[in-house]
């Protein structure tokens, strides 16, 4: 118990908690969209129930996956791979993708179909959150569970609000990418593989974090500039009055 209290009293704990919540918010936009869209065609009463049941399942799924990832991160080499993956996830966050024809389902027409889409989508799409959160928790199970418990309801109940903010203030996405870059750098260098090097040069942890931020922002900006389209994509036939 006293161990728990001293953990909560440390600055590292609160910093970690803020990081976990931040990562979850920027990486959960997609999941929130799928949850909202999968159930859109159901009658209203069923729609809210499908969102609730689907989200509840998704929360359990994500907590289990994240705990699993956190345990894996203690093994040598896994942190290096996880950190590199995280760098890729961060860059992807900064570069918008093309919205093609889309080959997913045309929205669910019955309750269990909607729940199924929500669950499967969350399983596939939460991989990035799971890696990010597990890395930011740095081995603390308390931090991990608390972070998830706080951020998941936040996402489910305010998904549209968060999306609006990200649309109007692109700096949120940039900050999210920087945060992921920071966590990624720190994750790679704290791999047990490099334990000797890190004890000799403890400043490397901060250096790797800064390098992660610089890499993500630089690469992200460059790729985003290249991906810029110069064709206007109109979806709705013009109606003149």
């Amino acid at each position, binding site marked *: 118990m006293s161990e728990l209290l001293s953990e909560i009293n440390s600055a590292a704990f609160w910093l970690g908690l803020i990081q976990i919540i931040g990562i979850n918010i920027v990486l959960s*936009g*997609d999941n929130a*969209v*799928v949850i909202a*869209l*999968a159930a*859109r065609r159901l009658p209203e009463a069923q729609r809210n129930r499908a969102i609730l049941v689907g989200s509840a399942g998704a929360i359990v799924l994500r907590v289990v996956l994240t705990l699993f990832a956190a345990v894996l991160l203690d093994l040598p080499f896994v942190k290096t791979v996880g950190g590199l993956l995280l760098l890729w996830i961060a860059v992807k966050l900064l570069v*918008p*993708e*093309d*919205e*093609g*024809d*889309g*080959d*997913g*389902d*045309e*929205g669910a027409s019955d309750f269990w179909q909607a729940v199924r*889409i929500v669950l*499967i*989508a969350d399983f*596939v*799409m939460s991989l990035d959150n799971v890696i990010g959160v597990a890395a930011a928790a740095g081995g603390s199970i308390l931090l991990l569970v608390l972070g998830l418990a706080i951020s998941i309801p936040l996402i489910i109940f305010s998904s549209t609000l968060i*999306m609006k903010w990200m*649309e*109007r*203030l*692109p*700096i949120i996405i940039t900050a999210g990418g920087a945060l992921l870059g920071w966590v990624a750098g720190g994750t790679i260098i704290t791999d047990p593989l490099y334990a000797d090097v890190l004890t000799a040069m403890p400043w490397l942890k901060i250096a790797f974090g800064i390098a992660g931020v610089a890499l993500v922002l630089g690469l992200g900006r460059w790729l985003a500039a290249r991906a*810029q*389209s*110069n*064709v*206007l*994509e*109109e*979806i*709705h036939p*013009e*109606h*003149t*009055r």
Partner: protein
Amino acid sequence: MTANIWTNPQGQTRLLLPVDGSEPSLRAVDHAIGLAQTLSAPASIVLLNVQSRFSGDVQLFIGGDELHRYHEDEGRKQLAAAEARVAAAGLASESHIVIGAVVESIDLASEQYDCQAIVIGGRGLGGIAGVLLGSVANQLLQVARRPVILVR
């Protein structure tokens, strides 16, 4: 009516209004209506709603038609208040909903729909906050190829 730099070749002034249904964007609509009524050239208002793209992951689970319907529904909702104000003022107008990056789409639309100026609402975050937060209006000021009127 002779054409000049504030009119298109047909002698009309077309004002592009990016609208997202927010209070600042509606303030910009009011300013544009006033401006359009003051001009001696026939003026029309081009309302534009930009819907942000979803990531590729979303498309894996939700079909393209459904996504388009969602964007269209959202777009119509966000345009409704502005359309009502323009209609009440008795001005000619048209509405467009596009998908893409907000700032780039506004700039492209100003060229494609041949608008002589863009009228946009800012949240009034001036100074350091505005620079740090890099709002859509601020970014537009940097890249726009057509004149921009920023309404605070």
